[in-house]
């Protein structure tokens, strides 16, 4: 366990070093090749499949650091698709994993708003798919089926969706009579249901980590600003009203971070599809998203005018926090899920 921890800390340190080197909101064109080269996509892949075997803990470290730097890479989407491959029983699994962790990009939708239906063919729209234009394949989950679909084939159309959060490039992917038999089916029936549940947990934990990292990075920038900037002949950081608000932000961040770490420590990778894990992931995401929204709203105010200029990264954090809240599903839905599960357990 402590060996693993050491390993994880090393991973975290190296990720932070890379992100610091690239700077806040490093562009996809620079950072993505580096991400692949450093083997980060192999973090959660088991050792028998030539991965690092660091599981959800390892990936969570990376998400936190990528969040801190507002990395413009579709890392989360790719890790979800790779995880689906790892969980699958298909023959070409090793080959595909190798391909998607070292060369071609694979992507997956990040929000529960798909209208795709599946019979012998796929039809409908998959939304919130990051960097679909540079990916070769996309992961599609429909009811009790998980499929890997090629993006460059007849019947598949991409359209870019402009978003406020410019650290993500999102696409709608529309399917018109895409023949299922020509795609790679990763799971069906109960196995698919479990796989989808697992992917949701992974996604929610990842988004929680993203929020925690980003909020911590933003608080650092904010404190730096307050320490530097003077008003009425003294640094802003000397004003108690501002200090107290920073203390509240710090406490919110640490509580969200503790909840994420605690939740991850309560489950093994194998339990990710279970309902309790899903609930833990939803709680972690809900707390982290609310926290990140609060922190970024406060940070913009504390930055004053300079925060309203697009040259300053402050707004990028705010916009990421707003989008994060609606990835997976919105806070309101998670709050209800958590309450209803709690009430059902009592009954």
């Amino acid at each position, binding site marked *: 366990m402590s060996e693993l921890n050491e390993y994880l800390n090393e991973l975290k340190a190296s990720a932070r070093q890379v992100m610091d080197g690239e700077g806040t909101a490093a562009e996809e064109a620079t950072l993505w090749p580096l991400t692949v080269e450093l083997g980060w996509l192999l973090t959660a892949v088991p050792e028998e499949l030539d991965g690092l075997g660091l599981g959800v803990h390892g990936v969570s470290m990376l998400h936190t650091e990528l969040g801190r730097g507002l990395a413009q890479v579709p890392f989360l989407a790719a890790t979800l698709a790779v995880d689906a491959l790892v969980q699958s029983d298909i023959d070409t699994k090793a080959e595909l994993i190798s391909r998607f962790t070292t060369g071609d990009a694979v992507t997956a939708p990040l929000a529960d*708003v798909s209208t795709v239906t599946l019979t012998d063919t796929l039809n409908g729209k998959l939304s919130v798919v990051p960097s679909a234009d540079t990916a070769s394949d996309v992961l599609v989950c429909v009811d009790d089926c998980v499929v890997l679909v090629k993006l460059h084939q007849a019947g598949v159309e991409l359209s870019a969706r402009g978003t*406020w959060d410019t650290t993500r490039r999102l696409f709608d992917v529309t399917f018109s009579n895409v023949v299922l038999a020509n795609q790679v089916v990763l799971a069906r029936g109960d196995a698919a249901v479990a796989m989808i549940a697992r992917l949701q947990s992974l996604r929610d934990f990842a988004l929680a980590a993203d929020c925690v990292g980003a909020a911590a990075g933003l608080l650092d920038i904010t404190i730096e600003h307050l320490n530097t900037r003077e008003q009425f002949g003294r640094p802003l950081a000397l004003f108690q009203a501002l200090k107290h608000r920073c203390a509240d932000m710090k406490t919110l961040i640490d509580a969200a971070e503790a909840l994420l770490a605690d939740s991850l420590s309560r489950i093994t990778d194998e339990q990710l599809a279970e309902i309790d894990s899903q609930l833990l992931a939803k709680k972690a995401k809900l707390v982290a998203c609310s926290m990140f929204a609060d922190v970024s709203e406060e940070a913009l105010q504390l930055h004053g005018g300079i925060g309203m200029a*697009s*040259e300053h990264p402050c707004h990028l954090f*705010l916009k990421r926090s707003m989008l994060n809240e*609606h990835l997976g599903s919105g806070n309101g839905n998670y709050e209800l899920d958590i309450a209803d599960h709690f009430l059902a357990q009592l009954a």
Partner: protein
Amino acid sequence: MSESDTQTLRQEVRTWLQDNVPSGWRDAMTGVDQESFVQLQREWFGKLSKAGYATPHWPEGWPGGGRSLAEQKVIYEEVARADAPRLIMYFVALYHAACTLMECGTEAQKEKYLPGILNGEIWCQGFSEPNAGSDLASLKTRAERRGDKYIINGQKTWSTMAQYADRCLLLARTDSSGPPQAGQTYLLLDMKSPGVTVVPINQITGDDEFAEIFFDNVEVPVEDLVGEEGQGWAVAQATLASERGLTLVELSQRMRYALPMLAETLKERGLLEDTALRRDLGKVIARVDACCALADQYLLKRISGEEKVGDASMVKLCYAQTLREYTKLGRRISGLQGQFDPDFMRGATQETGNWTLDFMNSYNWSIAGGSNEIQRNIISERVLGMPREPKTWKL
């Protein structure tokens, strides 16, 4: 003014607005470039000015002038009610420049500049500086007297539409030896003068309604000095007081008239049955009404001469906080959908129905013109009588 006179004016303005507000201007202003927006501003100013509704606050004798504050309030309320475009580009000229000239300008200055304003000359304000923020007293742009000219060097920022301005109300330092508020001088600067460079500020919303102005040995003739040299601070107070109250009455009313947009968003998203969101809507409706009531009450106090120090701060703080809550609810209702479509609408004040945009724009009111934090200082010290921030201190 009697109740029935107000009613007559109200009806007259309302009818005029019904006939003259450019129809569909909101759609026409979405996703367009700045030039189209400028065009709309020019046209709308022309109409309003001709009708006399652009200058109700000017003295008797000027076209449209001689209206009481109560009448001005009626016009502002009706403009908000009619959802007319805001005269963003002309506001500084019509209020800040004109009122400063009327109050502190020489006869020669009035003759020289006021007709130009009526004809659509655009003015900008050169007060804020990059490192001064809400601490206006600390500004650093220098004005050095050489013969019959001042030579200006320095930088101003957050100047509304400065890229289109013909002239600038400039506050610059002529003396650094005294306390920070002393030694400031108020000048009227021609934006076409050599050495003036304007760089629009790319805002987080994508808009570039504000700009930075750089001054490199820019010459201003001494006849464009307003008030005494070194007394610019007092003149600037007159500038800032010129529209005090009216803007917040208008903006609060606009918030109220835009409430149906929140309902529209609820409906579009199929959330009319969501009890929690409906309650939040009810809460916001009541909050908006309270904000309107506070702004109205403030203007009534001004009219009756009962305004006290700090009253304006409470109205501004209340508006900034209510607008934040209001746009945030819109953003929440919009859900994921609200995170797409970063196209912005120009000149539509704070309520465009693109709630993510509106939410971000709400920071303009909590930061600019004295941040919420500054207002809280003023309220606690001047209204509640709590001790001022220490002048000096030791860590």
